[in-house]
């Protein structure tokens, strides 16, 4: 299985990284770790991507090391531009079986489960998408 992991180094995607490792470990899966630096990225701590180039490199390197420690074949990649666009572009250039990503909520919709990036990727993806959403909760009736 060829997996594209969209990773930005934040909590929301660290769980996606863990899930990705668990899925890939002990299989023939290969993982491409992609971090996208948005054009408006600054080094600010307040929301947004801590998008200075060195940070993106560190993020991806950390994910790369995490996967390698677990014996998972992985490639790291950094792109600059609109995150959803770059993730979709990467998925179109090379064939993947699955895109794994977190479900960061951007924008004013507090109730929303999916962020704008994951929405766009789901809409345009040429392959399956696994959204890891730690904040998802199930109705009490279900349990």
């Amino acid at each position, binding site marked *: 299985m060829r997996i594209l992991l969209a990773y930005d180094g934040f909590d929301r995607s660290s769980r996606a990284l863990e899930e990705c490792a668990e899925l890939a470990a002990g299989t023939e899966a290969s993982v491409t770790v992609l971090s996208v630096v948005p054009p408006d990225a600054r080094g600010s701590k307040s929301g947004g991507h801590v998008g200075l180039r060195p940070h993106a490199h560190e993020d991806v390197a950390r994910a790369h090391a995490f996967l390698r420690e677990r014996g998972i074949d992985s490639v790291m990649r950094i792109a600059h531009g609109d995150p959803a666009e770059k993730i979709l572009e990467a998925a179109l250039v090379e064939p993947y079986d699955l895109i794994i990503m977190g479900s960061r909520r951007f924008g004013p919709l507090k109730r929303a489960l999916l962020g704008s990036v994951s929405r766009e990727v789901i*809409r345009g993806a040429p392959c399956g998408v696994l959204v890891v*959403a*730690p904040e998802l909760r*199930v*109705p009490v009736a279900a*349990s």
Partner: protein
Amino acid sequence: MKRILVATDGSLSAYEAIDMALELAVEHEAELTFVHVLPPDDFITGRVGPGRPIAHRVEMDESETALRAAAEAAEKAGVSYALERISGETVDEIVAVAEGLEVDLIVVGSRGRGPLAGAILGSVSSGVLKKANRPVLIVRGSGIPAAATV
């Protein structure tokens, strides 16, 4: 995105998938179809053999509960929906319904009631991923009931 198919087996994972599918349906003003797949039908042998129908009945109850919960959630969200119950091989039936309805997206929970309930991808989600020629969204939540965390 006009038509979304959500597979449910009544598991926690399926409810997470339903929740996310509802959100997408609201956004796209799409219609949802909930499908529950029963195991291959042994109704006839169950009828003929002594004491067998009970097992089937239990499955029907589970199916009813799963679909009713999905329907209630859709009504609450104001999303138009349809319900499907089919008997057969789970993955094949989900893919067949998706093809038949020409859905724009198939949403499944990452793991269901199968023997490997702890695995990231259950047999259904990985099977649908492999066989469907349509976009697939696999939802991996935390499986924590709302009451436990709020």
